[in-house]
């Protein structure tokens, strides 16, 4: 792999950009791999990357039915934060956030991580108490967050209206080191690094069956023929239940649609991510100037990657009181993705009833920010059978009643 650098740009400029090579190979599948990861989204690619980087396992295939990063990785609102209340969630999301800080250097690929800060607005008395508690918990966990006053919120976000009649802004939970990143670049960067380590990324290759012999995974059937493997990782977000069904077990989750939208591009007006959880809306400004807006999920099972129109209306309506300027914005485009939500709204990074088959799913509405941490932990679990980051996220927790009391992957905006 040729490294990207300022010298590479200069060299290519002098020869009419004829020397750029493809970022990753598109090989034909081999007959056997040590590890197969199903799903070439952010989480799947990150899992493969850390299998190679941390454990030297490079005989890996990443199988994708569509195109790389074309699912939720390319459909989210790119927010990165780790201000969670419970220890297990704070640990894995903070791991992810810290990995994002050096990701561009690690991958030699500019993922445009922008630690611009994230504010979660408190707009009810309950939220004040909740966020102060979270700020205190974060101090114990080593996550840098603080409770800030309405005046400070106004300083950071001048376009905000603090004194809305229905939901005034009463303060906020501020994580200065949170922010955004370029979502596609995260997938592309991991893909390039994986391909460079000799891993095969098989796009347009759908898994049609999981072969299980005496309780062990031995391989998968795909549209490009059967492929054997020693270990199988399912990292397919919204389609996790479908894949689990092929392997013969059920999951404690349901798939629903989550939508987001962007406005027309406008001049820079907000250099921070603002989330208003009471009214279900969140907003940031992209580097292109579009206001990126996300809201809540639909209430019913859905695999169509499109959601209900009234949710878009509700999301924008919710934000108009706090951001009056939204009422003058034209919305440019809107899209949906299928998110998988578990019984306690926290993800699964877990062994499964089938031996040598692992699952990483249930990230619901909060998957993008977790990509590097999730991949790191999943790789450790797959390689060694144990990871301190994943212990609490086992799918057996439902049987044991050891839920994670946090709507990490809640069906609401956060």
């Amino acid at each position, binding site marked *: 792999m040729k490294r990207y650098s300022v010298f590479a740009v200069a060299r290519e400029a002098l020869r009419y950009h004829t020397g750029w090579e493809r970022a990753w190979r598109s090989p034909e599948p081999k007959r056997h791999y040590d590890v197969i990861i199903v799903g070439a989204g952010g989480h799947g690619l990150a899992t493969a990357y850390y299998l190679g980087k941390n454990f030297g396992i490079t005989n890996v295939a990443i199988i994708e039915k569509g195109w790389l990063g074309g699912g939720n990785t390319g459909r989210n609102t790119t927010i990165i934060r780790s201000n969670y209340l419970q220890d297990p969630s704070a640990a894995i999301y903070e791991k992810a956030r810290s990995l994002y800080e050096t990701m561009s250097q690690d991958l030699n690929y500019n993922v445009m991580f922008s630690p611009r800060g994230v504010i979660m607005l408190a707009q009810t008395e309950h939220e004040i108490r909740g966020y102060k508690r979270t700020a205190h918990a974060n101090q114990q966990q080593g996550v840098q967050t603080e409770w800030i006053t309405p005046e400070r919120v106004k300083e950071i976000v001048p376009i905000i209206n603090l004194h809305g009649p229905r939901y005034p802004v009463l303060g906020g939970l501020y994580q200065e080191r949170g922010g955004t990143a370029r979502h596609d670049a995260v997938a592309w960067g991991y893909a390039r690094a994986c391909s460079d380590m000799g891993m095969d990324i098989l796009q347009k290759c759908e898994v049609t069956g999981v072969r299980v012999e005496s309780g062990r995974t031995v391989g998968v059937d795909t549209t490009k023929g059967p492929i054997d493997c020693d270990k199988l990782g399912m990292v397919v977000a919204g389609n996790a*239940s479908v894949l689990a069904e092929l392997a013969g077990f*059920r999951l404690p989750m349901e798939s629903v649609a989550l939508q987001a939208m962007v406005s027309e591009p406008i001049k820079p007006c907000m250099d921070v991510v603002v989330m208003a959880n009471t009214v279900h809306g969140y907003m940031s400004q992209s580097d292109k100037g579009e206001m990126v807006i996300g809201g809540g999920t639909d209430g*019913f099972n*859905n695999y*169509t990657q499109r959601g209900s129109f009234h949710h878009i209306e509700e999301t924008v309506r919710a934000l108009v009181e706090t951001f009056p300027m939204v009422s003058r914005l034209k919305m440019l485009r809107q899209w949906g993705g299928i998110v998988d939500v578990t019984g306690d709204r926290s993800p699964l990074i877990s062994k499964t009833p089938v031996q040598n088959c692992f699952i990483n799913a249930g990230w619901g509405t909060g998957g993008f920010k977790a990509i590097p941490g999730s991949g790191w932990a999943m790789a450790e679990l797959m390689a060694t059978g144990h990871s301190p980051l994943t212990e609490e996220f086992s799918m057996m927790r439902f049987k044991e009643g050891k839920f994670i009391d946090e709507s990490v992957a809640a069906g609401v905006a956060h």
Partner: protein
Amino acid sequence: MLILECPYCGVKAEETELAAGGEAHLKRFGPGSSDDAFHDYLFMRENPKGVHFERWRHANGCGKWFHAARCTMTLEVFGTYSAQTTEPPQELQEKISAKRPGWTWREFSDGQK
């Protein structure tokens, strides 16, 4: 926009008038049942990509619960029916079979397919 006809009051209601209630025909387990059965009843879901039976409440209407059969891949509604039943009516099942041959459902509440 999803439109369901309430089998009780006959109103064709769009989704803002309705509240989704999740998977239908769950076989309920309580005290005295095995841990596995209780766990599966509480948490495990079919979540199919295709034919789905689900509960809805006509929340901003007559207020009654009913059942709907819907395709989660196309959002096509096959029909709605009374909540006072343990499995979808035979004619609805036949209608679904005509449109989606080979559809499956793990188990209806009475334990028979």
